[in-house]
C-alpha cells in the first residue's frame, strides 16, 4: 500500500452493519479457538461420561460438528487444487490419477474408517487429535473426489479462444491459472462443493462415534450425542439433536451456501442458465458495511496480486525438451506396466492367502442382495417423486419452493432420522430386511426430486402447447411428451441417489436401539459387522467388492443410459 491511499482509508467510517459483522467474526474466532484447544486434550478415561444428553450441551456439540465439517472442506479444497490440477495439466499424470479417482469415488466411504482410525490414532497416540483427524478424513473422502472431478472437468473444458487470448497477452502458467482457469471452474466447483457438503453432513454424524475393534471413542458432536441417545433409548434427545441439526443446516444454508452461490454466478460464462434469484441477505448486509467491505476489497486486491505474480515461463520463452517426448512416453508406459503388474501380483498373493473362494462368492452374493435393495428403493422413490416432481416443476412458483426445500433436505443428514424408524420397527416387530431398506434412500431421494423439478421446469413451453393443441392427453402424454423430456434429468438424479444409497448401505443395514440390534442381509451389514469386530481383512474384501459393484453399475448401466439420453432426449 502506498501513502496515497491512506486518506481514502481514513474516510471510511464504521457503521451498524460493520458492528454486526465484527461481532460475528469475533464470536466465530472464539468458538474456533475453544474447539481447537479441545482437540489437543488427551482421550478421557471414561468415554461414556463425555457425552451429555442434556440439550444445553447441544450448541457446543453442534459447533464441534460444524468445525469438523469445515476442516474437511479446507482439506478437500487443497486436494482439489493440487490433485485435479496436476491431473489436468500433465497428460501422463492424468492417465493414472483420473482412473484412480474414479475408483476412489466408488469405494464406500464408511469403510475407510477401519483403516484411518488405526492410522491416525497411531500418529497421535493417546490424544483426541488422532480420532478427530480420522473423523475429518472420513468427511474429506466424502467430498474430495467429487470436487476434484468437477475441477478436472472444468480445467479440461476452458474455451480455447480464451486460452488463446491469455497466451497472446503473454500470461505465464501461474497467471493463466488464477486469471482464467480458476474463475472458469468456479461455478461448477461451487455447485459440486455444495453437493459434497450435503454428503459430508451424513458422514460427520456417522464418524463421530468410532467403534473399531476394541477402540471405542466418542468425539463430542451431534453424531455422538445421537449415538448415546440410542444407547440410552432416549427418544427426546433424538428430537433435540434433529432440532439442533436443523438450526445448523439453516445457518449454513443462509450464511454460506446462498451467498457463495450468488457470488459464483458472476463467473458463469454461458448466460441464461442460472436461476436469477434475488441476492441473499448476508451478501446485501456485507455490501452495506463500510469497514468490512473495505477490508474485503483489500483482501481481494491482495489475492489478485498473488494471481498476477509472473511465476513460470512466458509463452514466448523458448522451450527445448531435454528428452524427446516419444522416448519419455515409452518409459512412462513401461513404468506403469511394471507398477500394475506388481500391484496385481501383490493383491493376488494377498487375496489367495487371506480369502477362500467360498468367502468371496458369499460376499459377492451379499453384494447382489444390496444391489437389489438399492435398485428397488430407487424405483420406488422414482414412482413417488417423478409424478410429484413434474407436478411441482410445471409451475414456476411451486418449482422454486420445491427446489429450495429439496436442496435443504438433501443437506440434512438423514441418519438423524434413523432411530425414529428403528423405534417403529422394534415396536411393531417388523421385518428388518424389508423395513431397514427405505433408510438407504432417505437422504438421497431428494436428488431425484431435485432433478425432476429442474427438468420439468425447464421443459419447453411450446412443446407443452403443441401437445395441448393436438389433444395429447393421458398415458400418451406421459409416454410421448413428458417422460422423454425429463429422462436426462431423471438419470442424473437416480445416479446420484443410487451412489448415495450404496454408501449409506453400511450405515443402514445395521441399526440399533438400546441393546436391540437390527440387521438386514447385505454387503453393507457385512462391512458394518466386520468394522465393529475389527476384522480388517473382511472390511477390505467387502469394500473391494462394493467398489466393484458400483464401478460395474456405473459402466454397465448409468453411463450408457445417460449417453443414450443425451443423444435422444435433449432439446438441442
Amino acid at each position, binding site marked *: 500500500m502506498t501513502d496515497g491511499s491512506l486518506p481514502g482509508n481514513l474516510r471510511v467510517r464504521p457503521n451498524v452493519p460493520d458492528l454486526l459483522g465484527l461481532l460475528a467474526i469475533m464470536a466465530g474466532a472464539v468458538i474456533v479457538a475453544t474447539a481447537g484447544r479441545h482437540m489437543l486434550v488427551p482421550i478421557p478415561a471414561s468415554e461414556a461420561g463425555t457425552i451429555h444428553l442434556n440439550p444445553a450441551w447441544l450448541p457446543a456439540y453442534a459447533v464441534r460438528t460444524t468445525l469438523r465439517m469445515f476442516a474437511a472442506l479446507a482439506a478437500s479444497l487443497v486436494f482439489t487444487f493440487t490433485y485435479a490440477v496436476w491431473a489436468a495439466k500433465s497428460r501422463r499424470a492424468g492417465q493414472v490419477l483420473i482412473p484412480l479417482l474414479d475408483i476412489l469415488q466408488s469405494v464406500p466411504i464408511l469403510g475407510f474408517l477401519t483403516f484411518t482410525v488405526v492410522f491416525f490414532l497411531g500418529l497421535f497416540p493417546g490424544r483426541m487429535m488422532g480420532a478427530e483427524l480420522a473423523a475429518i478424513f472420513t468427511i474429506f473422502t466424502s467430498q474430495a473426489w467429487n470436487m476434484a472431478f468437477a475441477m478436472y472437468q472444468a480445467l479440461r473444458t476452458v474455451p480455447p479462444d480464451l486460452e488463446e487470448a491469455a497466451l497472446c497477452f503473454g500470461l505465464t502458467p501461474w497467471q493463466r491459472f488464477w486469471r482464467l482457469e480458476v474463475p472458469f471452474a468456479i461455478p461448477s466447483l461451487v455447485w459440486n462443493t455444495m453437493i459434497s457438503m450435503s454428503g459430508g453432513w451424513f458422514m460427520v454424524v456417522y464418524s463421530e462415534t468410532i467403534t473399531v475393534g476394541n477402540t471405542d471413542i466418542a468425539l463430542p458432536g451431534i453424531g455422538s450425542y445421537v449415538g448415546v441417545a440410542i444407547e440410552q433409548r432416549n427418544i427426546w434427545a433424538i428430537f433435540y439433536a434433529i432440532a439442533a441439526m436443523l438450526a445448523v443446516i439453516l445457518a449454513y444454508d443462509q450464511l454460506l451456501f446462498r451467498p457463495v452461490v450468488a457470488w459464483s454466478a458472476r463467473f458463469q460464462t454461458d448466460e441464461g442458465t442460472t436461476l436469477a434469484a434475488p441476492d441473499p441477505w448476508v451478501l446485501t448486509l456485507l455490501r452495506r458495511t463500510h469497514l468490512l467491505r473495505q477490508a474485503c476489497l483489500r483482501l481481494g486486491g491482495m489475492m489478485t496480486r498473488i494471481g498476477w505474480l509472473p511465476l513460470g515461463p512466458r509463452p514466448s520463452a523458448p522451450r527445448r525438451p531435454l528428452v524427446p517426448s516419444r522416448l519419455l512416453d515409452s518409459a512412462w508406459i513401461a513404468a506403469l506396466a511394471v507398477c500394475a503388474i506388481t500391484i496385481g501380483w501383490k493383491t493376488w498373493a494377498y487375496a489367495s492367502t487371506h480369502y477362500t473362494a467360498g468367502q468371496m462368492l458369499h460376499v459377492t452374493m451379499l453384494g447382489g442382495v444390496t444391489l437389489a435393495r438399492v435398485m428397488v428403493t430407487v424405483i420406488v422413490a422414482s414412482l413417488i417423486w417423478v409424478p410429484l416432481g413434474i407436478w411441482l416443476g410445471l409451475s414456476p412458483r411451486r418449482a422454486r419452493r420445491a427446489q429450495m426445500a429439496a436442496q435443504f433436505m438433501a443437506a440434512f443428514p438423514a441418519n438423524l432420522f434413523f432411530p425414529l424408524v428403528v423405534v417403529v420397527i422394534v415396536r411393531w416387530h417388523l421385518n428388518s430386511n424389508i423395513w431397514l431398506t427405505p433408510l438407504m434412500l432417505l437422504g438421497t431421494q431428494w436428488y431425484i426430486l431435485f432433478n425432476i423439478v429442474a427438468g420439468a421446469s425447464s421443459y*419447453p413451453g*411450446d412443446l407443452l*402447447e*403443441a401437445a*395441448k393443441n393436438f389433444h*395429447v392427453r393421458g398415458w400418451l402424454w406421459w409416454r410421448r411428451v413428458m417422460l422423454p423430456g425429463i429422462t436426462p434429468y431423471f438419470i442424473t438424479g437416480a445416479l446420484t441417489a443410487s451412489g448415495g444409497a450404496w454408501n449409506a448401505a453400511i450405515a443402514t443395514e445395521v441399526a440399533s436401539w438400546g441393546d436391540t440390534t437390527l440387521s438386514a442381509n447385505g454387503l453393507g451389514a457385512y462391512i458394518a459387522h466386520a468394522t465393529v469386530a475389527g476384522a480388517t481383512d473382511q472390511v477390505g474384501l467387502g469394500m473391494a467388492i462394493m467398489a466393484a459393484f458400483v464401478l460395474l453399475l456405473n459402466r454397465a448401466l448409468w453411463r450408457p443410459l445417460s449417453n443414450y439420453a443425451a443423444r*435422444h432426449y435433449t432439446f438441442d
Partner: protein
Amino acid sequence: MMQQPDTAPPPPKSGTELVRIINCRQAYHKESATDLVVLDGVNLSIRSGEIVGLLGRSGSGKSTLLRIIAGLLPPTAGEVIWKGKKLEGPADGISMVFQSFALFPWLTVQKNVELGLEAKGVPMAERHKLAEDAIGLIGLGGYENAYPKELSGGMRQRVGLARALVVHPDLLLMDEPFSALDVLTAENLRTDLVELWAEKKLPIQSILLVTHNIEEAVLMCDRILIFSSNPGRVAYELQVPFEHPRNREDAAFRQFVDRIYALMTRRAPVVSEADMTDPDMKHVQITADAVALPALPINTIVGMMETLAADPLHGRADLPLLASRLQLELDDLFPLGESLQLLGFAELEDGDIMLTPEGMRFVQSEHDTRKNILWHSMLHNIPMVRTIRAVLDERPNHRASAERFRDELEDSMSPDYARQTLQTLIGWARYAELFDFDEEADQLFLDDETE
C-alpha cells in the same frame, strides 16, 4: 384515433364464418398496481376460404390472441365463438404451427406427424397412410425416419406444417412460422405454401397468420389486420386486392407495402407538451404511460443516424428502403425509429423517417459533443431519466436502488419490459455520462465524472 379503421369495412365475403372473437380482453394480474392489459376490445372474425394476417410489432399481443383462438389460453373477458359455439379449451379442427417448430426431439418425423392422429385414436394403418400423405404433400418424402435435429430449419418447419395439416383442421394457426428461418428458406416455404393453397391442395378451410413482416403479410394474405400495441387491438383492417401468385417487385405491391408502413408509423407523440415545458426538473412526475424501450445499444442508434445522414439519404428516407439498406426487419427498424423520435433526433411520418436539426448536429459532432447532446436530450425528453437524475442529485451519497425505478416503470409495463427499459436507459446514460450503474449492488449512482 387509432381505433378508427382507415379504410371502409371490407365487403362481406362469401365463406361461412369459422371464428368470431367478441370483445376479447387479456390482462395479467400484477401484484403492485393496476393489471397489465395485453389485449383490449379485440373483435374479429375469420371466414372459410381466406388467409388472414395479423400484423403487428412483437409484444403487441398478437401471439397471445392466437393462443386464445387456439383455446390454449382463456381470455380474461370476452368470448371466442368457434363454429357457432363458445370455445372452451383446445378445439377440434384448429391446428397450430409454431415459430420455434415445437417438434418433439425424441420422435422421428413420422412419429411427430402422427402425434395428433394418435391422440385422436386413429388406428395404426390409417395413421400411417394419412401421415405419409401429409409428408408427401409438404415435400418431405424420404425423411420419415429422420429425427428433427438431423433436419435444417426449413425442413423442421415443414414437419411442423405436416403435423398440423395431417389432422385435416378447418383453421390453421401460424405463429410467425417463417421468422426463425433464413431469408431464402423462408421465401421458399412461403411460395410453396401459397401455391398449395391456391391450388386448393391443403386440407384446410382457412389460415390465420401472425407476423411482423409487412411484405410477408402482403404476399400471402387476403386480409390484413394491423395490430397496435399497449394494449393490443385491431387498429386497421385492409383487404389485399391481388391475385396469387403475387410479385414483390410489382409497383402496386410496393405501394401497398408503403401504405402499411405509413399506417404503422402514424402514432401519438410519445412525450406530451406538458413534459417538455416543465421548468422545474425536480418535480417531474412520470407520466402514466412511460414508454417501454427495446434492447437498443447506443452504437446501433448512432450507426442508424450516420447512415441516415450520409449519401444518398441526406437525412430523410423511406422506411421500407431504409429497412432493406440496413438489412433490418420491421421488428428492429420501428423500435430504432421510435427511439430516435423519443430522443428528438428524428421524426417518423407516413412511412418516412427524417433527422431533426438536433439529430444532424449529433451526427456531425465529435465524440465529446455527442455525449453532451445526448446528455441534454435524455434529460429533456425522457421523464424517467429526469426522475433518476433528480433522485441521485438529492442523495448525499448519490446512490439509489435500481429496483425502485423498475417498480415505477412497472406501473405502465410488464416486469420484463421494465427491466429491459431500465437496462437500455443505463446503456445510453453511460454513453452520455449521465449516471452509472453498479450491477453487483443493483444501484444507480453518480461517480466523479458524472457528478
